[in-house]
């Protein structure tokens, strides 16, 4: 059982000119077994929502609550949130020079599980996870994300998702910049994760094409820092045909 509950969330981004409000009251509940797609134009605040859930220091929550199974997520530090079962696949994964993927993964797995993984199976698990995302085993000895192509970075995020096995995954435009083969590979990874059961997925995307491979239970249209409309998978088809104009023009 796991439920991520976001209620009336208000968030500002810290800028040089002071705080700038981005999220204006987001309410969303993701129960386990559910995949929610958030779709919205560039700049509507999708990444702000993702980062706020993960606890990025650039963002300040000015109102509302986020809970995971009733626990106050906003009171947790960044790493506590991850250990509580949240995972964020980033739109722009960060390069960490000099830290090998294998060291990084082992450190993260140890932190999440509270004990180091069994040596005998771990190496195999890592190789399998990389292979499943079409990353060859040499990636394990490379520095985290350094010199990875855009697509390799995204695939590395999903390999981490499968290895770390959180309760709820927030995927921020994991589909952007992927060619069709990579998109399929990444989608299969997300579907494998979701099919384990008791998992929540918040799939943030700009485009509808990923929804051909990952079937959402709910679609939310995200505009100007709040959810403008929600519905089932059919809402995505409508967006595909009509775009965001209807929602953005309403604001003008």
């Amino acid at each position, binding site marked *: 059982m796991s439920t991520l509950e976001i209620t009336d969330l208000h968030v500002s981004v810290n800028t040089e000119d002071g705080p700038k409000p981005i999220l204006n009251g987001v309410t969303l509940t993701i129960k386990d077994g559910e995949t929610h797609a958030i779709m919205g134009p560039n700049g509507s605040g999708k990444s702000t929502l993702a980062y706020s859930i993960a606890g990025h220091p650039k963002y300040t929550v000015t109102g509302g609550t986020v809970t995971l199974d009733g626990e106050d997520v906003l009171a947790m*530090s960044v790493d506590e949130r991850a250990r509580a079962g949240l995972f964020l696949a980033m739109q722009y994964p960060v390069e*960490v020079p000099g830290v090998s993927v294998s060291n990084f993964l082992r450190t993260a797995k140890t932190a999440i599980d509270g004990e180091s993984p069994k040596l005998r199976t771990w190496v195999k698990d890592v190789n399998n996870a990389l292979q499943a995302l079409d990353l060859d085993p040499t990636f394990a000895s490379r520095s985290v994300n350094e010199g990875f192509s855009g697509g390799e970075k995204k695939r590395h995020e999903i390999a981490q998702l499968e290895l770390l096995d959180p309760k709820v995954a927030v995927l921020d435009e994991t589909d952007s910049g992927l060619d069709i083969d990579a998109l399929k590979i990444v989608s299969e990874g997300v579907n494998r994760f979701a099919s384990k059961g008791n998992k929540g997925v918040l799939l943030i995307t700009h485009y509808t094409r990923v929804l051909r491979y990952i079937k959402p239970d709910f679609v939310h249209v995200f505009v100007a820092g709040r959810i403008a409309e929600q519905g089932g998978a059919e809402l995505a088809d409508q967006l595909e045909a009509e775009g965001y104009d209807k929602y953005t023009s309403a604001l003008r």
Partner: protein
Amino acid sequence: MTVTDVARESVASALEQAPVVSHLNPLPSYDLADHPVPTGREEVWRFTPIKRLRGILDGEPSDARLEWDTSVPEGIEISTITAEQARELGELPPNERPAALAVARSGGAALIDVPAELAPGEPLVIRLTGASVDDLVWGHLVFRIGNHADVTIVLLHSGSARYCATTSFLVGDGARVNVVSLQDWADDAVHLGRDAIRVGRDASVKHTSVSFGGDVVRMHANVEYAAPGGEAELLGLYFADAGQHLEHRLFADHNQPRTKSNVAYKGALQGQGAHTVWIGNVLIRKVAEGIETYEENRNLVLTDGCQADSVPNLEIETGEIAGAGHASATARLDDEQLFYLRSRGVSDVEARRLVLHGFFNDLIRKVGVPSLEGRLTQTVEVELAKTVLAGVPLGASLILPVEEVAD
């Protein structure tokens, strides 16, 4: 002899291989009169806290010595020679007061002879230990490395002293030499050192300077070439704590065609008054066509109250170069990197540790002395324990301006 600018210029135009015109690199001379006591306003001394050198530059005679403990592979001979003999061997003459004093006051030099074609599997290790900062110790060393020899030399400095030394590495044709100088002094030590390397034809030299301990450490690594085809890689790693002054001055003198130099120094600073200085001078002389050079210095500032000075300086006298570039950057620990690691459940402290090890890792690997890698990693760990692992706040989350030049 006092060298005026005029004299310098006429020498320079008379001889293709003339000493350098750069004000940063004065004419070499054994005569102490050519190296007056610095005031601290000179370009080459302006970063150095002269008062904290505890009178070394006055040049008082002293018989005090560092304790030598050596591991010498078979075939390598260590002996004592006179200063005159060192000069006749073709050592690199002093170009600064500390080196000139070291020659004048040491009363002879240690000669370490590596015969031609010798390739011991084990490194030559010289452990130099000081008894007390009250000891003023002069040091004069000459390493003579024969043609096609292949040797690793490790110099480990520890304990305490006021130590002022000049060391020449005369590298034969086709030789491969890996030198590591580790400054792991006690908190009160003062060390003025100059490692001067002459690279033989087609020889390749790696020199790594590692500075952790000491109150003031000021190290030169100078390279010049005896013939075309030589390569030098100058590496450095330093970690300055509160109140420490760690200064590294590089000089790659491309005085021969088709030579290479590659400089990479990385440092971290933590605590009030931690000060590091990196001066990277590269001179490409008129004759030095087809050379390649790259120099890089990166500093990581871990707390407030630190200062990292970093000055790359490229002087080019010929247009016919294969490649030349430099980069210098000083930054805080990267918040985005820390966030990324922490978003995977890694604790704040562990994330900082990972990023810092990552920062130094590639350099430690490049040192290429497996028996030393563990020790270096461990020393980094010990240094980190002082702040990062102790949970001391690392200051504002601001990224300092990064300057990057590649021409």
